[in-house]
């Protein structure tokens, strides 16, 4: 297990390096000059050169990339701004804030959104999937299938606005979505995020319902489940200890991918509910051609997905002893 983790983490770092390089060079493929945008409407050439120098984009591209990489490990000195401690992802082109600090400040919002949403969609999705598998072909199964089909056809910006209109504006059942740090006020944290969580879970639940149902139905017809029944084990123990154990693998896989994606920033969810997380930051940095911020957000999102995959593989090996980690 230890060797597996070391190898995978090293591999993940290589992947992140490649992603950063690709993002960096793609940025320069866009015909936009961040220096001109930062400089203002009237910008003489000498001032433009100065701005370019200050932003750190006067050097050739590979040199800039090298500086960017270096800064992550040893920090970097900026003309007129001072030293930026490692891990340094530079300063925003558009408002000069420290990129790393900004991301760390936004991360709890995004993580809260992801974890709370995951709690609801796992609970509801897996729960209804199990019920549907137990009541195959009955009304409950058909109802669950229909709802999951409807749910998976929905979009956050559709369900989100409708839910906000009815539940918040009209019926005043839920609070206007907002983020309060958990450490500050757990109640406000909960009530402010409840609506986004529920809306996220409507969208995601469908996948888990269908996956859980189909996996369980498949496992329940496996020979080893029949053997468990032939041994005289009770239905519930056959269901949970045998069939569910076998069904878990693919569910863990999609859950890992979903969590990775959500930690990278639920862009649409955040903009629908005007919650200032990483997703919102990503959108703005693209709009502003804000290279350091864009790189920072991209790296966080990439790291989220890459590490979620490592965790999924490790969990997979815990579930299924046939899988050897190497």
């Amino acid at each position, binding site marked *: 297990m230890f060797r597996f983790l070391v190898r995978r983490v090293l591999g993940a770092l290589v992947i992140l390096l490649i992603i950063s390089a690709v993002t960096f060079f793609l940025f320069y493929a866009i015909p936009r000059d961040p220096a001109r945008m930062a400089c203002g409407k009237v910008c003489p050439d000498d001032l433009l050169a100065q701005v370019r120098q200050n932003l750190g984009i006067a050097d050739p591209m590979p040199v800039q990339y090298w500086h960017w990489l270096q800064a992550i490990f040893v920090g970097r000195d900026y003309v007129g701004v001072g030293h930026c401690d490692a891990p340094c992802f530079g300063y925003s082109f558009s408002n000069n804030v420290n990129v790393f600090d900004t991301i760390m400040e936004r991360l709890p919002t995004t993580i809260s959104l992801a974890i709370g949403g995951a709690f609801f969609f796992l609970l509801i999705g897996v729960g209804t999937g199990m019920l549907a598998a137990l009541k195959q072909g009955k009304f409950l199964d058909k109802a669950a299938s229909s709802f999951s089909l409807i749910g998976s056809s929905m979009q956050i910006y559709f369900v989100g606005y409708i839910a906000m209109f009815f539940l918040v504006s009209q019926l005043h059942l839920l609070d206007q979505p907002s983020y309060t740090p958990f450490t500050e006020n757990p109640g406000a944290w909960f009530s402010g995020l409840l609506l986004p969580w529920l809306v996220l879970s409507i969208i995601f639940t469908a996948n888990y319902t269908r996956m859980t149902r189909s996996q369980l139905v498949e496992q329940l017809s496996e*020979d*080893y489940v*029949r053997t468990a029944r032939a*041994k005289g084990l009770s239905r519930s123990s056959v269901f949970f200890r045998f069939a569910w154990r076998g069904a878990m693998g693919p569910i863990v896989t999609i859950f890992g991918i979903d969590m990775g994606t959500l930690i990278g920033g639920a862009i649409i969810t955040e903009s629908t509910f005007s919650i200032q997380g990483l997703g919102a930051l990503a959108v703005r940095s693209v709009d502003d051609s804000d290279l350091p911020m864009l790189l920072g957000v991209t790296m966080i999102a990439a790291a989220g997905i890459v590490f979620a995959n490592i965790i999924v593989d490790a969990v997979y090996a815990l579930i*299924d002893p046939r899988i050897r980690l190497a």
Partner: protein
Amino acid sequence: MTSTDQQAFLSVRDLKVHFSTEDGIVKAVDGLSFDLEKGKTLGIVGESGSGKSVTNLTILGLHDRHRTAIDGEILLDGKELTTARESELEKLRGNKMAMIFQDALASLSPYHTIGKQIGETYRKHTGASKSEARKRAIEMLRRVGIPQPDMRVDDYPHQFSGGMRQRAMIAMALVCDPELLIADEPTTALDVTVQAQIMDLLKDLQQEFGTAIIFITHDLGVIADIADDVLVMYGGRCVERGTKEEVLRTPQHPYTVGLLSSMPSLDGPVDVPLSPIPGSPPSLLNPPSGCRFHPRCAFAEKVPGGLCSTERPLLKVEAGRGSACHLTLDQRQEFFADLAATRH
């Protein structure tokens, strides 16, 4: 049926198992009767889809209850199983009656150690503690001939070889000393040497505990080795039954004759080609009329009036020996003697 003093240990009476599928009703078992005494082995022979496995899954109550209609009686030690509640069956399964499945790799849970799978049956039925169950599992593994059982008890099925998995499967079935053991082609997937070891193992265990065994197979060689009585199934019905010697030496049904002549014989001349039964097993969704074997039967024309395709031949049993065929006994002696001659 009224219970008599002579009630067999396992008694199946006119068992009918019908599944409803989207295409219609499948008559997987259509009126099957047999008796089995303790310490005896009944071999059930037939092609795939002849209803042998279904019969035995039904005895254990492992059929899909929502889709299956069952008619007839299954009496185990005087207890009616077809109408028993699930909770009652749970107490019997793995305890009084156990089953060995064909494909041990697929039939053992890949997620639990061998020891745990054996031990949990024991714990369920005896209320033993975890450590007692583990001890029992090691003892069982030793009994079925697994080397270093105290080490292998913590292995997973995928770490066992094919023969060892089948032994572990047997250990699991025998952990509560069942009185009825159903073995569903337990040696089909194994090579011949391992097959022989497994058969010896079953015979030893039977001698030791007086277990009644139902041995399902399509391999007549295996039947010759292990069975006391033989029941030949075709299309969900019993076509012939009798002792092993009777059925294998003097078969009375054309289907049994066909099975025997499609098997190579060591003492016969090597240049005589095998004669397979033409055609394929019948669809149980829409089975042939009359005798279900008549479309494939070489002797159907010998029966006057096309009786084979119109009327179901009844199984006439006398002293445990019987067959379901319209041919007269004289006819059979005449026709089947030729076949026997070509074989020997």
